[in-house]
Each structure stands twice: as structure tokens, then as C-alpha cells.
């Protein structure tokens, strides 16, 4: 099954707005920290805005929905994409570049005793020490080992690798913002019917607590795919199609089953709009799931992936 990407051929970017609403009730719990609270700020027209999920967090969520944790592998549709897996000294899976926040630049990949990946990168990117960084070549190398990093950006912050200048910008970015928010304060008491005045530090006793949820008439998830950047990688039509389909799959997957952001923040999609290019329709998830294996095979046939697709390194402190 194939997807028609011709309408995107000349478009510089793909912008998608997804209007969200709490799955049950009206309240939701935004991102925040115990001593900082939620990120509330003012909009230019005076309405109060709330950052429900940041760009960094959404990137993590878009990666999480691609990973089948119990089986330690990509979800079915994405099987065959290259990545790096880290195993511990007993050979058990420890982490991988999809789950690691810094992807290929993860300390578990580049900072351990096992320098396999580091050496490969150094060898393949050796001629970039002086002069301008060849981004097309960098993109080709990243695609070879960690295809996912091409979409979410990468910063190889090691001076041995071209003086720490190897950077790829985010191609897919996203955030969730709520407009015109109001605070919904609530609270309660954890009751200890055995000894209400017990030592609360040890988990006994009655503990009163408060919590701050929010309500909002409008919650929107914004998605942005930099199509010009995908074309700018110069990796050919097959890779372009694969990266676009992969980005769309991530968005669909997050909207379909990745919107339980926190215990008290479970959102549902009310309306989905493609704002750029107008008139283009976002393919359904099952259409993308059906198309992606073929796209992976096409790129693999061009010899652009490392073989085997999974590069394995073992973790041990230097």
C-alpha cells in the first residue's frame, strides 16, 4: 500500500493542529514540578495560556509510541529501522537510542568502555574536523545507525567528533498548549484510621494534601514537520518518503494512544486540522502502518542502513 506524497513535494512544512479535550470531565493536570507549579503565561490578547506539554516532552512521547518495550523492539510497523541497543554486562537489554533522551549522543552509547559506535562515527565523520560540516553526510551516517534521530534532532556534543559541531535540527516538533485556563483547586486527606497522628515521614498518620488542576475551553496539540529540511538532507526520494511517513506515524500514534500524559491528564482528539498545506489530508494510522514496511525495505535496498540493523554496544564504565 502506498501513500501519495506528491502534494507535499513543494511544501516547505506540514503544520497540524489537533484540538484536544479531557477524556473524562473537564479538568486536566498540566506538566509541572512540585516547587514550580504549572507553566502559566499570558497571551498577547490577555488570555491566560498554559503549557500542557513541552516540545522536548512531546519528542519523547513520539518516540515512546514507536517502541514495544516488553519485546524490546520497534512496534510491528517500524520493524527493520536501524537503531543502537545497549546491553549490560550480563547481556540483558539496558537501553537503546529510541528510549534515550539524547539518542545517538547518549552517554550509554558513546561514553562507555565499548567504543564501537564512537569509533565508527569518528571514522565515518573524520574529514569534518576542519571546515564546514557536511550536513548531508552527517545525515547519511545518522540514518545508517539511528534513523529516528533524523526526525528529532541530534547534537553530538563531543569535541573528538568535529569539535562538537555536529548538529541536526529537529524536523518534527510539537507542543500542547491550553488557552484561557482557569485553576481548579482541590485537596483531600490521606487517612490513617489506625493511628491518625503517626509519623507522616514514615508513611503513617493523616496527611492533608492539595492539588491544582486546570480547565480550559481550548487545548491544542501543534505539530510541525520541516519538509524542506527532510529534502535538504539530500538522501533521495525513498528516504524522504520514509521520513515523512515515519513522522506522520508518530503523530497519529501519539494522538491515538499516547495522550495519557499524566495520571490526571488523559486527553482525546476532538478535531484534527492540517493547516499547511491546506487541503491535504493526514493518512490514517493503519494506512501508514501498511505503507511503512515497504518504505523501509526500499531504503534498505539502497544500502543506506547498517547491517545488521541493530548495532549493539555493551555498557561498562570507562
Amino acid at each position, binding site marked *: 500500500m502506498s501513500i501519495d506524497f506528491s502534494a507535499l513535494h513543494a511544501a*516547505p512544512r506540514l503544520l497540524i493542529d489537533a484540538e484536544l479535550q479531557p477524556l473524562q470531565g473537564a479538568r486536566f493536570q498540566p506538566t509541572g514540578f512540585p516547587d514550580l507549579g504549572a507553566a502559566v503565561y499570558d497571551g498577547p490578547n490577555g488570555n*491566560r495560556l498554559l503549557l500542557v506539554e513541552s516540545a522536548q516532552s512531546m519528542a519523547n512521547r513520539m518516540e515512546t509510541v514507536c517502541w514495544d518495550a516488553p519485546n524490546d523492539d520497534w512496534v510491528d510497523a517500524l520493524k527493520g529501522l536501524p537503531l543502537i541497543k545497549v546491553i549490560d554486562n550480563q547481556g540483558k537489554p539496558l537501553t537503546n537510542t529510541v528510549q534515550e533522551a539524547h539518542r545517538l549522543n547518549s552517554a550509554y552509547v558513546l561514553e562507555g568502555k565499548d567504543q564501537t559506535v564512537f569509533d565508527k562515527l569518528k571514522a565515518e565523520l573524520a574529514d569534518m574536523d576542519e571546515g564546514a560540516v557536511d*550536513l548531508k553526510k552527517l545525515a547519511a551516517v545518522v540514518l545508517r545507525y539511528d534513523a529516528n534521530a533524523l526526525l528529532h534532532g541530534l547534537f553530538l556534543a563531543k569535541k573528538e567528533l568535529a569539535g*562538537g559541531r555536529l548538529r541536526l535540527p529537529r524536523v518534527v516538533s510539537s507542543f500542547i498548549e491550553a488557552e484561557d485556563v482557569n485553576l481548579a483547586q482541590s485537596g483531600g486527606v490521606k487517612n490513617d484510621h489506625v493511628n491518625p497522628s503517626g509519623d507522616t515521614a514514615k508513611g503513617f498518620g493523616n496527611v492533608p494534601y492539595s492539588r491544582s488542576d486546570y480547565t480550559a475551553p481550548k487545548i491544542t496539540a501543534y505539530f510541525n514537520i520541516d519538509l524542506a529540511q527532510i529534502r*535538504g538532507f539530500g538522501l533521495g526520494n525513498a528516504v524522504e518518503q520514509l521520513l515523512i511517513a515515519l513522522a506522520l506515524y508518530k503523530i497519529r500514534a501519539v494522538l491515538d494512544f499516547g495522550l495519557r500524559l499524566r495520571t490526571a491528564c488523559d486527553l482525546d482528539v476532538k478535531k484534527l486540522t492540517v493547516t499547511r498545506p491546506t487541503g491535504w489530508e493526514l493518512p490514517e494510522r493503519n494506512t501508514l502502518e501498511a505503507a511503512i514496511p515497504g518504505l523501509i525495505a526500499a531504503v534498505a535496498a539502497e544500502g543506506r542502513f547498517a547491517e545488521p540493523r541493530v548495532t549493539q554496544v555493551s555498557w561498562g564504565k570507562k
Partner: protein
Amino acid sequence: MLTLSLSFPGGRYHATPWGRHVNEADVAWPPDPWRLTRALIATWYRKLDHQLYPETLLTSLLGLLAAEPPHYRLPTAVHSHTRHYMPNRQKSTLIFDAFARIDPTEALIVHWPGCQLNDAQTALLDELLNCIGYVGRAESWVEAKRLGDWSGEPNCFPGSTQIDQETGEIQTEPVHLYAPLTPDAYANFQQQMQSGLALRKLKTSELKSIKKTLPISWLAAVGLDTADLQNAGWSAPPAAQKILYQRPIQALKSSVASRAKPKPSPSADTVRYAVYGKPLMRELDTIRFAEHVRRAVMGKAKWTLGETAIPPLLSGHGLNTDNRHCHAFFLPQADSNGRLDHVLIHVPAGIDGDMRRVFGALKLVKGFDGQEWRLMLEHIGQREDFENVSPIVQSASVWQSRTPYLHPWHCKKDFDIPAQIRREFRERQLAEPTEIRLLPTIKPHGRELRPIDFQRFRSKRGLAQPDTRGSFWQLIFAEPVTGPLALGFGCHFGLGLFTPVKANE
């Protein structure tokens, strides 16, 4: 002339000013010409076909843009930030992420008044603008385009502080923006620096890192990595100059998140006060007292809102001719002894927030001879709210004069007083009375009163007054009409006021 429009579909612009730490949470606003130039270079470098758009063309385009500091038209922006901890295992550092929150539908305009591009440069610029993904940090999604024609007024431009000559108030806020040197200026600077470096005794490594930041190519100098500049010890990029710009005060408003959202006020058209003072004025002097009240309201409006901001609906001045009777009616009301102990102000077009502030602040009415009456605000609301205390706002089919009616036009053949009354109803788009009866006298408080017993003249001189005597009337309508009904000369000052007649009266 060249004009660019930048809009931010994510509604946010993240950029740290040069020389500031990210945790200072400052935002570079507007985007420096230096940053825009570098964003264009990055876009060319990452996304464009270098065969189709060669480096020489890019240099010529950016050199032209550097030749003239651009002017800006800034949209409303709010300075905001979020905070988060770095997910570092050893130490969780708190990071401030500052940004300007902008309306995604509003555009930031960058305008070069004297810039002329040739066709190839225009084509390259259009392609760069089409492909640019963000300006500033990666979260600052941007959509950019060239505007063929722009006739707007810039509000941020190079220059010194602008001062209002009349009031002495400072009208602009200075802000330093970095802009690239022109290629010629950079070539001069680079040669001078190179010859200067040759004279200094520096370590080889130090010399090497400085020389690396002074390439011969202007484009390479503008496109240098910030980390390289910092390593070489530059406090500002060598290929940049600092230009003093003036932006509007509050161009980057600080966050006002703690401010409570004002509750929307219910709509209102009527306000009523109780009047205290000794002695209270007589109902016969209604027009006098109404004039005192209006003067007090005007004074309070001037003090509260400013001399030039008095609402026309309060003053009655400066309204359209078709809106003559939508402004305030000052209607004093008498007690059973014929003393004016209340005043009702009715604004048919409605009372807005400014007027509410004025009415809320009004406490005192002064006469000309040192008399004072204290006012106590009873309520601001719809006229129906006052039905129980003020009969003049009730609905009724029969109304009769409470104060004398002074016809506003000169009487002519076929245009007698009843005809004038009917015309007033037509002009106010109200149902005309079916019957109009002359009343020689009225007996409001048991005492029989003639029109000439009332004060019937405004204190304002030079007013044309076709009627000096006045008359009392009873009006009968087919359907009940809602008051207040005030007609004729001085109707906004309590003359020509009608009151409902109950069925048993």
C-alpha cells in the same frame, strides 16, 4: 524597498540576546538583523540546492540586506517563560526557557526602505523564506514571505529616543540590535585586525583560534559558530555591529499572569442615587438640580478618565445626529413633600466600563452658591431594576406630565404642540400616542401647580427656546410603553418628564 513578513504559527518566539545567559530569561526582541541573516545562511546551507543558488548570489543578497538597517513593525508580544529541570542524573539544574508569546495570526514586519534586489536575488530570497523553518531557537516556528507592497508604519527603527515635544514624555524604549557589517566594512576591519594581530605577541594556539574567527570571506565570518567566537574571546561577533534601535514602550510586555481576569459586568443603562443635603431642592427647580448633577458627572469623568476621554454618551457632545437622544438623561425625583431626594441617570445606549467608574466615584453635587448635596449610589443596572422605586421607568398605557413640557420647535399652522409631541415619538422610533390631552394644572403633592410655577430655563446662555411657558399633557397609548418618557426642550435635564397614571387615579 523590500518588506518581509514573519509570522509564528506556534505563537512563540524563543531567542536569547547576544551576550546574555539563557537563564537570565531575556528575549531578543525584535529578532536582530544578525540573527535573521544567520537564519537565512543556515537555511541556504541546509536546505537549498547550491548549484541552483550559488554562494556568490547568497553573498550579494545578504550584503545588500546588510547595507541598510531594517525597520520593524512589531506585533503585540508578551514576555513569558517556563521552567524545567535538566534530567541530569547527578545534578538537576533548573533551566529558564524565556520566549515572547505572539498571536500566530499577527505578522512581524521587517522593512528595508531603500533596498532594491535584482531578479536572481529576489528568487533566492523567496526560496530561502519559503524554506526557513525557525528563527531563534528551534521552538520558534516561523513562516516568512516577501511582501510585494507594504504601506504600514514601522514602530521600531534605528535612532535616538523619541520624546513627545508637548508633554516631554518618552515615547520609545532603546534596544541594541546586532547587525552584520557590510562586506566592505568587514574587509577593512579584518585587514586592520590581521595587521594588529601581527604586532601582538600571542601564543600560537591563541593566535590560531582568533585567526579562525577572522576569515577573509564575509559570509564565513557572519556564519561563524558562536562557540568558536566565544572560544576566541570575542565579547561580540567581529563581523557584527551594535545599532541602537527604538521600540515602543512595552513592546515586550512583562507577563501579567497573576492578574485576576476582570469579571464581565452585567449590561446596564440606568443608575440611581439617593440625595442628602439641607435643604434639598424643590421639584419646581428640577432643571437646576439636573444641571448641577450633570456638571458634577462631567467633573468626575474629567478627573477619572481624562479631559479628552469623557464619553460622548455622558456629555451628549460629539454624537451623530441620528443618535441625539441615546445619551444620558439626568432625571431628579421628588419625595412626597416635593423635595428632590433621588436622581436617576438613564443612558439609553448603555453604560460601559468607563461610565461605571465615573458613576462609582461620584459622591457630591455642588450648587453655585456653596450648597452641597451628598450622593449615595444605590444601584447600577437595567431600568427594570428600578420599577419599584421609580415609577418613571415602569410600563403603562397612560402617562401624564410631572414637569412642564416645552415644545422644541416653533409652532406653525398644522404644527401645534400635539403634532410636535407626535413628531418626537416618531423621531425616537417609539409608538405614537393615540390621544393627547392638555392638562391646565397638575397636583403632584396635593398642591395645584401650573407650568409657570416651575423653573423652565437652562442656565446655559444662548439656547434657542421656542417655548418659554410650558404646558402639561396626558398621553394615552394603544399598548403600554416603558419609561422614562422625557420630551421637548430640556428633556435631558428633567423637563418634559412624564409619569404613569394608574387605572384608579
